[in-house]
């Protein structure tokens, strides 16, 4: 029995590392965590759902919150937006229209962008749970 313990421990460590890697990959690119775990359906549809929300939000000229926000709602908005991973950084690499929350569409767009992050957060948790063996 004593000789089995290090093997079990190593396996648990490796499982934890893989789970962390899957969660980080799921954050970086929505669906990538599931792609690594060979959950093709979840990977494709998560990417489409998060991408659909984020791109519609950008098209509606929604606002992304930055890190330097003074009020709690701005800080929560940043946390939600940042969870969208690659989609949060899109406007930095591509020339996109500036936010316009003076119209209803822009305000809705802000909610779409936050929802993209929250949906991706659910995807990250799901990828972590699958990789750690807590979900099949």
């Amino acid at each position, binding site marked *: 029995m004593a000789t089995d313990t290090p093997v079990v421990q190593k396996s648990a460590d490796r499982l934890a590392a893989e789970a962390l890697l899957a969660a980080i990959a799921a954050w970086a690119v929505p669906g990538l965590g599931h792609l690594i775990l060979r959950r093709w359906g979840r990977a494709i549809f998560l990417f489409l759902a998060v991408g*659909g929300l984020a791109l519609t939000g950008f098209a509606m*000229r929604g606002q992304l919150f930055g890190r330097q926000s003074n009020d709690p709602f701005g800080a929560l908005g940043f946390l939600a937006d940042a969870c969208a991973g690659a989609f949060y950084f899109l406007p930095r690499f591509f020339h996109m*229209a500036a936010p316009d929350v003076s*119209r209803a*569409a822009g305000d*809705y767009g802000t909610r779409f962008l936050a929802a993209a992050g929250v949906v991706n957060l659910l995807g990250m948790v799901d990828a972590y749970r699958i990789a750690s063996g807590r979900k099949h």
Partner: protein
Amino acid sequence: MRGFHPSHFWAMVAFALCVSVAFAVLARRSAGSRIKYALWSLVLFLAIGIGIAWLMYPLSK
């Protein structure tokens, strides 16, 4: 750039569709149960959204 300005209803449909698809793929495993879950979730999103809109209608006058 003008931007994309859908009506309130179509914005709600787009939002409900994306979120329903994500919920279905995360909550169910088989294709059949995912489709059922996504449709049910979409219908509930729309029905509750329209219901709340009607409840708020008197406040708009």
